[in-house]
């Protein structure tokens, strides 16, 4: 979330789409209800089914799953047509005025400029800003002379120009604003009705309601967009979220109390796991992962450290310019005294990555016999899928599997999954270790919530039986491996032998010691030049401003620097005061970065540094003190006066919000374009010859089949969670099983009538990959839709059951997994599979 849970209470208007917070985040959703109760805020809910969030909304639209970009495009189009923008914000805080290179082509045919049909990749060199600073509207421009924009062979890798050409009148035909207008002019209510299935008057009604906060040119009101994995779990997931961000930039809602683009993450600590780089493509604190061409540390640092790219008259803080300080401090934390200036701080210890090692690819390689061992710590990969049967088959080909869990799960028991015969079981040679881990009540440590709050929790009881704390299990395994390398030697043992492991009890590291290591400390005295504060050698660092690139500081994650300082554990604070009344709670826990609660909050003020709405003032420019002050920690260079025209989006080298994303930083194109989900009942009326996202990743194994309507897969299916259940966990909790006792499939009443299915009857849902059996829930909460003139049905499956659980073990279920149905088609940016939309057949079981 750019903002936070409590901050939702400050909003005037909510668009909830791609998420179902009433069911999946009920206690956070209270703040949406508070906004309704205390501010008469309006709530628009858009979902494939009428959810419990929809039940308390002011306007509900039923959308066909996976067509969110089309609808957001219609909203953007409406915003531009009716001038519902915050003009001052748009011109000064976004790249709307930036001029794009000649040769850039919009995807009227489904493809941006630079498409190489043979290699199936884009040359992105035209997806860039023009150089040249302030540009007059009558300057020469050649929007027609596109020539498909393929750059000359052998050109150096493109980079952003230092002095970006821009036209603050927004009139230049190649400025971002004009291109945006042109691009989304195709997204008319009539067209979008055919794609999404939402009647056009409803589209207009929703667009009008959402953008009504800028109806009379007022900049006082604010709207928020709230989403979850209904957006991310698609082959164009990242672009959907981009669409939301663009809409919010147009309206001037990012950075403001009650505004923002708010991702509701689905689990207690996946925000923390992302920050900490539990995924292959980043290092802690979102540092880029090294690639083979980073032949030395300097090359790596040069690649990951951006240079400012902005109109010459403007300023850019370009915070990532500090990347070297973050990277060196990380390596000092990992490898201690073994990381020296002389050996490039042991940069060569880090593995270099040159291909996609993401979730679905991991299972694909195991399926191909290339991954021999898998550790699964609290991660039920078989149930999570997608294409669960493939994951089961993949594990059959592994040599060993180590599962750490608190309950018996599908992954650890893959070798006796339903359908495996005794004969086949004998041939499964995988050794499986199942280690009893600790439950949440038995562990201390930190979780990070969606609002980026780090909160420490305390252990109440010891783990039961022989169960152990997770960190003890991991430490014992690692130290045993280290012993083996010490004794026997082996391939490149250096990083294993030299990993810093100076915990008081190395076999069971205290998490307070680890938390302090993550914050980082000074190895020598370090002084902050701005404040002249000195931190003595050995002391905890108060913030990342003290990090150095000379090896004199450590920090396991620069974003968390400040979380455990000499003043104590900021993450353990329990201050309940909120003097501003905005729900900031500055002294409760600690929020990254530097305890800032709303990101980009400089944008909550106009260009003069005055809040757009004084009643919701977060930060402001104090002219007499010559600095930014406020109720929140300013997300800005503290002493940069408004007259400097420094951009509020300090993590971008441009300093401004990106309506146009240059150079393929988003792989599918600078603007979101509607592509069909990979298994779709429709052809894509915008460009039938290019129905799908051309750069989405589609796995090619024998198990990765794609179904079509021609083969009879003509019902749209989506998956989701229920409020009574949590993933594949609460199926072990009698209380939750009582609330939702059995798996079911939600089926529109009209479809049930056609197939003569009544509620409670068993049905079989079949995709190109596998099948699922559960009872039918016949409902009017999902309606038939008209898609491209054809009556189309959607059904929905809650994901919570498998082959181990209370109901499963009692024989009350068919022991099938919802994700046996879902396909491994992957978004090209976030590498998240398309769980949320695929085609099925439906019949009585």
């Amino acid at each position, binding site marked *: 979330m750019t903002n936070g849970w409590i901050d939702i209470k400050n909003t005037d208007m909510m668009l909830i789409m791609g998420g179902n917070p009433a069911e999946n985040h009920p206690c956070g959703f209270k703040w949406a209800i508070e906004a309704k109760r205390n501010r008469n805020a309006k709530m628009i809910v858009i979902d494939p089914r009428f959810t419990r969030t929809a039940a308390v909304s002011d306007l509900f639209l039923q959308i066909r799953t996976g067509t969110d970009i089309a609808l957001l495009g219609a909203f953007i189009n409406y915003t531009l047509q009716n001038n519902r923008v915050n003009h001052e914000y748009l011109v000064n805080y976004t790249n709307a005025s930036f001029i794009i290179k000649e040769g850039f082509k919009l995807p009227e045919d489904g493809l941006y400029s630079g498409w190489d049909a043979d290699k199936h990749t884009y040359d992105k060199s035209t997806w860039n800003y023009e150089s040249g600073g302030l540009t007059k509207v009558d300057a020469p421009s050649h929007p027609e002379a596109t020539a498909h924009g393929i750059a000359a062979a052998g050109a150096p890798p493109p980079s952003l120009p230092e002095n970006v050409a821009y036209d603050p009148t927004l009139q230049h035909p190649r400025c971002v604003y004009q291109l945006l207008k042109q691009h989304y002019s195709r997204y008319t209510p009539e067209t979008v009705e055919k794609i999404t299935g939402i009647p056009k008057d409803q589209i207009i009604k929703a667009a009008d309601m959402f953008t009504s906060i800028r109806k009379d040119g007022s900049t006082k009101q604010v709207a928020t967009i709230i989403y979850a994995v209904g957006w991310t779990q698609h082959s164009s997931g990242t672009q959907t979220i981009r669409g939301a961000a663009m809409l919010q930039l147009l309206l001037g809602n990012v950075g403001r109390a009650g505004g923002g683009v708010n991702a509701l993450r689905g689990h*207690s600590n996946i925000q923390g796991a992302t920050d900490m780089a539990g995924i292959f493509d980043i290092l802690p604190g979102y540092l880029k992962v090294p690639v083979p061409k980073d032949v030395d540390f300097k090359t790596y640092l040069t690649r990951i450290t951006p240079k400012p790219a902005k109109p010459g008259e403007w300023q850019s803080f370009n915070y990532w310019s500090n990347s070297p300080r973050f990277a060196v401090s990380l390596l000092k934390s990992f490898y201690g005294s073994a990381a020296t200036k002389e050996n490039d701080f042991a940069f060569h210890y880090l593995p270099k990555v*040159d291909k996609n090692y993401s979730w679905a690819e991991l299972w694909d390689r195991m399926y191909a016999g290339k991954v021999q061992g898998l550790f699964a710590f609290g991660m039920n990969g078989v149930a999570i899928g997608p294409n669960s049967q493939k994951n089961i088959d993949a594990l059959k080909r592994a040599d060993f599997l180590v599962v750490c869990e608190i309950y018996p799960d599908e992954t650890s028991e893959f070798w006796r999954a339903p359908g495996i015969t005794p004969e086949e079981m004998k041939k499964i040679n995988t050794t499986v270790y199942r280690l009893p881990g600790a439950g949440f009540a038995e562990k201390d440590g930190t979780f990070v919530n969606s609002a980026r709050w780090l909160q420490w929790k305390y*252990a109440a009881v010891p783990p039961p039986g022989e169960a152990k704390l997770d*960190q003890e299990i991991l430490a014992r395994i690692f130290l045993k491996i280290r012993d083996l390398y010490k004794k026997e030697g082996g391939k490149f043992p250096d990083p294993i032998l030299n990993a810093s492991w100076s915990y008081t009890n190395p076999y069971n590291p205290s998490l307070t010691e680890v938390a302090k290591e993550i914050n980082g400390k000074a190895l020598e005295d370090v002084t902050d030049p701005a404040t002249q504060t000195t931190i003595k050698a050995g002391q905890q660092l108060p913030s990342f401003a003290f990090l150095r690139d000379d090896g004199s500081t450590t920090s396991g994650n620069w974003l968390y620097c400040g979380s455990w300082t000499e003043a104590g554990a900021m993450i353990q604070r329990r201050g309940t005061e909120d003097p501003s009344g905005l729900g900031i709670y500055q002294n409760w826990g600690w929020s990254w970065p530097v305890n800032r609660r709303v990101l980009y909050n400089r944008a909550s003020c106009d260009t003069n540094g005055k809040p757009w709405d004084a009643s919701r003032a977060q930060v402001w420019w104090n002219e007499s003190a010559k600095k930014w002050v406020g109720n929140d920690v300013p997300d800005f260079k503290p002493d940069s006066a408004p007259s400097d025209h420094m951009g509020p989006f300090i993590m971008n080298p441009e300093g401004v919000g990106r309506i146009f994303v240059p150079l393929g930083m988003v792989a599918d194109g600078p603007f979101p374009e509607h592509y069909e989900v990979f298994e779709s009942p429709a052809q894509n009326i915008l460009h039938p010859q290019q129905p799908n996202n051309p750069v989405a990743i589609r796995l090619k194994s024998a198990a990765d089949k794609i179904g079509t309507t021609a083969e009879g897969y003509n019902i749209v299916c989506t998956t989701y969670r229920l409020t*009574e259940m949590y993933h594949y966990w609460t199926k072990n909790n009698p209380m939750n099983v009582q609330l939702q006792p059995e798996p079911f499939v939600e089926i529109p009443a009209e479809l049930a009538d056609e197939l003569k299915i009544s509620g409670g009857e068993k049905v079989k849902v079949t995709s190109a990959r596998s099948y699922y059996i559960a009872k039918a829930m016949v409902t009017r909460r999902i309606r038939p839709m008209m898609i491209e003139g054809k009556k189309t049905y959607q059904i929905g499956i809650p994901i919570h059951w498998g082959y181990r659980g209370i109901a499963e073990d009692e024989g009350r279920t068919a022991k099938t997994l919802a994700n046996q149905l879902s396909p491994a088609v992957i978004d090209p940016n976030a590498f998240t599979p398309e769980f949320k939309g695929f085609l099925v057949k439906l019949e009585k079981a």
Partner: protein
Amino acid sequence: MSSTRREFLKISTVGGIATTVLGFDVTSAQAQARELKIARTTETRSTCPYCSVSCGVIIHTLGDKAKNVTAQVVHVEGDPDHPINRGTLCPKGAALYQDILNERRLLKPQVRRPGSDHWEDISWDQAIEEIAQKTKKARDDAFIERDANGFTVNRCENIGFTGGCTDTNEFNYLVVKTMRSLGVVHLENQARV
């Protein structure tokens, strides 16, 4: 409701005799507000392990954490001080008591041997020894020091690590430190999906 008429008569007769007529002992009727089950508990502040709201919860245990006491969890309730949930919980968080005390919990290390159709108990030491041996062998078998272009890559492609959604920051940090040091690149987490 399938009380039979015979039962009814039995009950009403007994009831008729047992009640009223001779008046009523007020003290006996007053009693009975059940004792507050959290009146004598120790409170531990924790965070709900489910969604990303991170609601504060209070775990109530019997036993004061003295050395000779094994604490017993008796109740879980929302933390009213927590600024986000303010004491509220959803149907999952409100049922955490039955997650902590659950007869389905795994209590011993187990192993399933190749070709086997059952779990066997295994000691922690044995399990860790075997896991370390297998990990080292797999790594040494296929470790890539240089790629086809001659660039140093120092990676191990044939071992994967998948982390869960309830792993703490501190645990995740130890995972990244150890797995990257082993050269593991198939490092993934619930955060991806």
